[in-house]
């Protein structure tokens, strides 16, 4: 059943009944983050004990003095305990016992600040949880990057030991690559997609909430690797290095695999929501571009992330119960890992690009006061990137010897992906034609996105050329390339989205003056940090080294100092965020950007269940400049209109 057919009836995420007047228990007795933590501690202790019981007799445990089985089982039961403590399974058991689900127990009632610390089924609460979580994860991983740049200030004098340095590199890379997959889909996708498509809810609120509550677990487990001696194989975790590594590698594999599950759930929920929960009149040709971008992301997440979880599971069994998927002498192969990992890893980098495309396409019409140029081209570009992303992964392995004769094929598919990417530039440039550009903070971030992604994309063409890639592969050139696309693309779009949508999500506008400072420092700091790294890589500096050629010190020092400016600009953002949302709280409840987006036609922050009535969408979201164009939607449609709209889809469904 797609959408509640009777306007006016409340929908209950998760299918719970209205609260039956159950008396509320005091806050500390209701499941929330503190009971989750208690559950996690108990779970870890139990799992660790169990692992010692099972595996202490293994020969490998005896010789290596470390029991990986105990650690992995500890993490497994820790996650189960964490979720149980959060109350994730409560409704499940209640339904099995045949009891009614009280809404208050679900955390669906109105509930102040406390609701954000609980397993909550409202997509708007989950969106805010994701937003705060992502900022924390991003800043943690960003601080680690500062550590890397500090070590690289000098080619010979060392701040860290070689072990600590590699641990920092691995933590930075893994944390960014696993958690930033959800940096836009998590907050903005979960919060805004149902509103943008005119739905009162998402398809699977429980899966959505679960996808968020797995991220703090993955984050903490990944950080806990440092307590276990860290891991020393970077975010790609290539065996056999990752098999011989200390127990920190268990934390890496478990956290990354767990995040794979979170991505799968989040993607699946968005996918079904967009397909099945669109309001009447929200045709595919009226879908906002942000929804198209997130839809493509969700497809890639749902199809690629399970492969990641499977690969991590194989790595964990190699490390614990001594399977030999990746051990050459026992019939396994390190190539198997490279294939499995990059089959996920390449769609992943488009998971990290497409949401950014969506945001800039969404914002450009608003701030140019023009319709989007070439709507179909933009949608085709996103679909094209989504499909092609599954056919390029071997370009990470051009020099590995895995299938050298297929290099022309992967060179072709990789270079072909710049065609749909180019569509986005055509759309952006066409939309600017004779526009009336309003230079707001979000618009500046859009411009920066195009500048950065242009450089990231063109350097990607160099990498896709197999001969040129021989020098660039594994060097700082590649590193600069993907920071231009991910940091310069995704994170800049995320920042633009924050300034644009926070008035919608929190009813609060971020300070504009600080916003301009943040933007200019971030834009200049970013380019000053990563532009020279192309040269550093071309001149022969491999990635993940702590010693480099003396002649490259000037460039490296320039980069390190710029990276502090970049870090400071992110600090300004955090200050702005906290200052605006906690201290000054300047209310902004209307439509500050004069946007036609459906999400701006309802109050900010949106009421429970978003719309009083299921809206009927009347026209596309980007019809700026047309005299007498219809409003984007009828928020209070006559009952007859709705009934007609639904009866059409009902009969269609009955016939199918």
């Amino acid at each position, binding site marked *: 059943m797609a959408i509640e057919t009777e306007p006016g009836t409340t929908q209950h995420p998760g299918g719970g009944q209205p609260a039956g007047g159950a008396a509320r228990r005091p806050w500390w007795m209701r499941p929330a983050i503190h009971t989750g933590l208690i559950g996690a501690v108990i779970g870890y202790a139990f799992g660790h004990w169990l692992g010692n019981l099972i595996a202490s007799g293994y020969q490998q445990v005896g010789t290596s003095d470390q029991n990986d089985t105990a650690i992995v089982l500890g993490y497994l039961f820790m996650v189960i305990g964490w979720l149980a403590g959060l109350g994730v399974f409560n409704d499940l058991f209640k339904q099995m016992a045949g009891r009614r689900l009280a809404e208050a127990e679900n955390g669906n009632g109105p509930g102040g600040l406390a609701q954000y610390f609980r397993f909550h089924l409202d997509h708007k609460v989950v969106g805010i949880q994701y937003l705060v979580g992502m900022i924390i994860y991003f800043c943690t991983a960003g601080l680690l990057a500062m550590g890397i740049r500090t070590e690289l200030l000098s080619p010979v004098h060392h701040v860290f030991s070689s072990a600590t340095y590699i641990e920092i590199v691995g933590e930075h890379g893994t944390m960014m690559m696993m958690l930033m997959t959800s940096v836009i889909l998590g907050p903005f996708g979960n919060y805004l997609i149902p509103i943008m498509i005119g739905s009162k809810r998402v398809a699977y609120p429980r899966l959505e909430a679960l996808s968020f509550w797995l991220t703090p677990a993955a984050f903490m487990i990944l950080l806990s690797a440092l307590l276990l001696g860290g891991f020393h194989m970077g975010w790609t975790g290539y065996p056999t*290095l990752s098999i*011989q590594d200390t127990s920190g590698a268990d934390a890496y594999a478990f956290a990354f695999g767990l995040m794979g599950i979170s991505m799968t759930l989040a993607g699946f929920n968005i996918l079904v929501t967009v397909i099945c929960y669109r309001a009447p009149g929200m045709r595919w040709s009226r879908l906002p571009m942000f929804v198209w971008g997130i839809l493509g992301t969700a497809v890639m997440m749902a199809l690629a992330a399970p492969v990641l979880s499977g690969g991590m599971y194989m790595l964990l069994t190699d490390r614990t119960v001594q399977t030999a998927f990746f051990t050459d002498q026992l019939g396994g192969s390190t190539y198997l890992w490279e294939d499995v990992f990059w089959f996920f890893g390449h769609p992943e980098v488009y998971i990290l690009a497409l949401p950014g495309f969506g945001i800039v396409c969404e914002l450009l019409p608003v701030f140019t006061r023009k319709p989007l140029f070439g709507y179909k081209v933009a949608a085709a570009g996103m679909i094209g990137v989504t499909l092609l992303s599954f056919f390029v992964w071997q370009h990470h392995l051009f020099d590995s*010897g895995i299938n050298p004769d297929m290099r022309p094929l992967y060179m072709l598919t990789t270079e072909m992906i710049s065609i749909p990417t180019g569509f986005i530039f055509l759309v952006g440039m066409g939309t600017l034609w004779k526009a009336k550009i309003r230079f707001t903070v979000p618009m500046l971030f859009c411009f920066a996105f195009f500048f950065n992604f242009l450089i990231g994309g063109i350097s990607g063409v160099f990498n896709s050329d197999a001969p*040129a890639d021989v020098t660039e592969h594994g060097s700082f050139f590649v590193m600069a390339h993907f920071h231009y696309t991910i940091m310069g693309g995704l994170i800049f779009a995320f920042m633009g989205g924050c300034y644009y949508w926070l008035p919608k999500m929190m009813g609060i506008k971020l300070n504009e003056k600080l916003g301009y400072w943040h933007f200019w420092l971030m834009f200049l700091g970013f380019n000053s940090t990563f532009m020279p790294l192309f040269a550093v890589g071309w001149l022969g500096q491999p990635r993940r080294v702590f010693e480099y050629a003396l002649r490259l010190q000037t460039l490296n020092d320039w980069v390190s100092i710029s990276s502090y400016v970049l870090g400071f600009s992110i600090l300004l953002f955090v200050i702005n965020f906290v200052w605006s949302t906690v201290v000054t709280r300047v209310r902004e409840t209307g439509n500050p950007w004069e946007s036609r987006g459906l999400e701006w036609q309802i109050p900010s922050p949106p009421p429970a269940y978003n719309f009083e009535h299921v809206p009927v969408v009347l026209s596309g979201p980007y019809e700026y400049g047309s005299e007498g164009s219809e409003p984007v939607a009828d928020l209070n449609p006559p009952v007859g209109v709705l009934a007609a709209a639904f009866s059409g889809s009902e009969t269609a469904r009955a016939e199918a």
Partner: protein
Amino acid sequence: MAAETQAATPAAKAGGPNHGLRIFLIWIVLALAADLVLWFVLGPHIPPGRLGSAAQGQQFDNNVMIAMSAPVLVLVLVYFTYAIVVWRRRPGDDADGPPLHGHSRIQALWITVTSVMVLSLAAFGTYELIVPYGAGGGEGPSPIWNPPGAELTAAAQQRPWAPGHVLVVQVIGQQWRFTYRYPGLGGFETTELVLPVNTMIQFDVTSIDVIHSFWAYQLGVKADANPGVDNVAYTKTQHLGRVTVRCAELCGLWHGAMFNYGKVVTVPQFQAWASSTSVALADVTKLLPPYSTTYDPTEIAHLGPVLQKLGLTGAGGGYYPPQDPSQP
């Protein structure tokens, strides 16, 4: 811009400046200038240089791609700058822009031009990959793009080398060092990479522990060193000079310190070096396992301590005590 003729209709071409022509003129001048400077001034200095034939090929590839992408870069930048300067909202003007939903001719032109560019780049890259025998990249154990005289079996590689023929150099990666074995010169193994000039070199890259990547920067060679795999790469030495070798795949704690230097010398110098080294290492060479394209450290682990004492590593099982890396 003083021209403030705001035609609110889609047919905005009439009146007002011809923006398209202006952008085109600015673009063509800047793109031409950029290409000339990049090709003729910067081009000869683009990495990775010309010491090896593979490096020279990569330099040429880089230059072609620079020449192709510079006009694209300039076009987008000129367009955005023009838009920011000319099409900004004037104070007090709250009207919307013209409602242009698209332009099918421009869209078709854009898609055609980008597709042609991309496909021709792929064809160019394929040609540049196949003709110079894999362009210096690792081609696996049985490359199909190989130079005349390539030796692909262990038996053939052990035939005595004569000047003018392909020289086979086996590269053995281990934590955290590369060693080099010369099967055509008696099979000795050294930590020193010495190569004769004007010679086609065939690197047979393998590893005895984790994945490394053999990166001989000035030669334009990069090939992953995988345990149990023979990964072949070709380059031809073109000048005398020094070669920097770095590991390009994270391989553990001292990955950053896994580098050494090699040199390209004249053929007589190389022959003299080879015969003297062969004699000096004769005792050690006897202890080494027979030459093979890959090595299994678990089979020859007992040799490890012996060779460690002799300061030699690699083919003989390396630095490791037998149980480390732990094998089940």
